């Protein structure tokens, strides 16, 4: 039996596994995350795919931390595999741990496979996440995308690798999500085909369109396609960190100044940053999460779809 708490962060779902996950042994978190990915893909698929999961859901497996000063260790994954860091799921995790009575208002440290992240719980729903150091890797990379023509964008790290562009094929509105998804997939394919990567050859698995906000008190709006081919319902914490890293590198956003980013459904994150040690930015992401369900998931041995339906 798998015990989970479901929540959504500004519209984007998270499923935190609080009991019944696979035993990944001890050792560095990155090593345990690799084991989850390589040896327990069925478990991850069962949680997130039909008939047990919902579209765009991110899983968060709680594990004992290797770092003694951390509240918990956590490995994030989506239907396509592991995620390094996930902003919305970290906000969902903090709200879930508060819901369980495991943490209270204040600052907490979580260990992820890509480093320690800090989360500040302001009330039952509002969390500020201090992300890993984000930075722009390359500016104004031009690629030729079949069906779209030339597209120019920046490559940046925000805990995941992003290609950020303002060359939006259609407006960033909820009724255009199908067209935006197709365009983002085409860009990702073109990046892979052209051998354009992040640092050390890391594949770029997130594509982010950036545009103008609808609200007068917001600064930006985005559409982010995730590696599982679902787009982020929230403004994407790591994607907005990558955006802020690019703004900082261009001298367009000062340390401490606020950047309010809208998602494709109009939900919001508010970000500020301070300079990082390696020349990038340490972004703080503030958003809200809401618990939607407590559940026990069942996987009967005789169930032909115990590992989900793969289509």
């Amino acid at each position: 039996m798998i015990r989970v708490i479901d929540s959504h962060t500004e519209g984007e779902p998270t499923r935190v596994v609080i009991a019944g996950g696979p035993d990944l042994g001890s050792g560095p978190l990155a090593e345990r995350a690799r084991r989850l990915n390589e040896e327990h893909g069925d478990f991850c698929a069962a949680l997130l795919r039909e008939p047990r999961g919902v579209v765009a859901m991110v899983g968060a497996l709680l594990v004992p931390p290797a770092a003694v000063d951390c509240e918990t260790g956590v490995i994030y994954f989506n239907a396509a595999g592991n995620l390094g860091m996930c902003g919305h799921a970290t906000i969902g995790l903090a709200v879930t741990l508060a819901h369980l009575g495991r943490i209270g208002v204040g600052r907490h440290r979580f260990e992820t496979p890509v480093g320690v992240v800090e989360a500040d719980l302001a009330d039952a729903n509002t969390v500020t996440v201090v992300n890993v150091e984000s930075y722009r890797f390359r500016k104004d990379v031009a690629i030729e995308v079949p069906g779209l023509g030339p597209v120019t964008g920046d490559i940046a790290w925000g805990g995941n690798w992003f290609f950020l562009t303002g060359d939006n094929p259609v407006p960033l509105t909820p009724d255009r999500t199908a067209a935006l998804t197709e365009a983002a997939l085409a860009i990702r394919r073109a990046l892979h085909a052209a051998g354009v990567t992040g640092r050390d050859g890391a594949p770029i698995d997130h594509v982010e369109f950036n545009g103008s906000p609808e609200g007068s008190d917001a600064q930006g709006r985005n559409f982010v396609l995730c590696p599982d081919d679902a787009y982020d319902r929230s403004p994407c914490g790591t994607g907005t960190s990558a955006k802020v890293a690019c703004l900082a590198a261009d001298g367009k956003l000062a340390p401490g100044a606020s950047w309010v980013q809208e998602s494709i459904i109009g939900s919001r994150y508010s970000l500020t940053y301070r300079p990082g040690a390696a020349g990038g930015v340490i972004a703080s992401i503030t958003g809200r999460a809401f618990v939607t369900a407590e559940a026990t998931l069942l996987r009967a041995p005789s169930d032909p779809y115990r590992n989900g339906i793969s289509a």
Partner: protein
Amino acid sequence: MRSSRTIHVISCHAEGEVGDVIVGGVSPPPGETIWEQRAFIAGDGVLRAFVLNEPRGGVFRHVNLLVPPKHPDADAAFIIMEPEDTPPMSGSNSICVATVLLESGILPMVEPETTLVLEAPGGLVRVRAQCRNGKAERISVENLPSFADRLDVPLEVEGLGTLTVDTAFGGDSFVMVDAAALGLSLVADEAADIARLGVRITDAANRQLGFAHPERLDWDHISFCAFTGPLTATAEGWETRSAVAIQPGKVDRSPTGTAVSARMAVLAARGQMKVGQSLLARSIIDSRFTGTILGETTVAGRPAIRPQISGQAWLTGIHQHMLDPTDPWPGGYRLGDTWGVR
């Protein structure tokens, strides 16, 4: 914990098609009959939005609400909530409901066979469940009387030309089209095409052919498009493939109990099936339902069959759905990329 709504759900799928069951936390909707309660749920929309929409649900999710039965013969009653419809009956959902009722202990399980009478909005359905070691291993549902409405009628579909189709009722209303005529073999990688074509064909059939149930005058539309595969003879009857496009444009993962019933009604009307014979139908993901004609009957004087659908369901979880009072999306949201292919 803060929650202004607490809804208990046992989640389930029948041959791949999700049919979750609300077992607690919702008071029975107003209405003198289950049909009237169904109409309230459909018109009110609040419960449907909460459980069917993102982020709690998704287009592939159906949710059933258990309500106290109204008919003296019924053991339990349920209202089916599908993405767009709140229908009279559903094969995969009734199999999920029966499985949840027995495996969760809401109704007593008797091994090796339990018989139940369920009250669906469209009427009573009789259930036989083969049970072993606390598991309902096979559920057989006697579906609502099913009948062919129009056979071999032309249907103009823009971009496809003139198709020859049948219309029929199998617990829900169908336009039925030969898959081979559209170049389809009803396999998984055709899912998007089937969903897209099915919505267009259903829309065209509603405009040009229409449907009215002779006894339920407010069920006056064609709900689904069924793509029918070729028939292969077996010792018991026939074997085939079946794919159904459900509004707003998704493909049933199961072979669709109501479609199998409607197909058998059409085959009976053509003299290709008789009482006692079976139709084994495989879905787009190769899961199976077996349909059997139990007997003949009439619906408002029209010849009809008493169809039975058999299949298996599996419990997938136990959930307590909650609503944080400050949640900005108490009714969730729907977005066009996943909510149908229109």
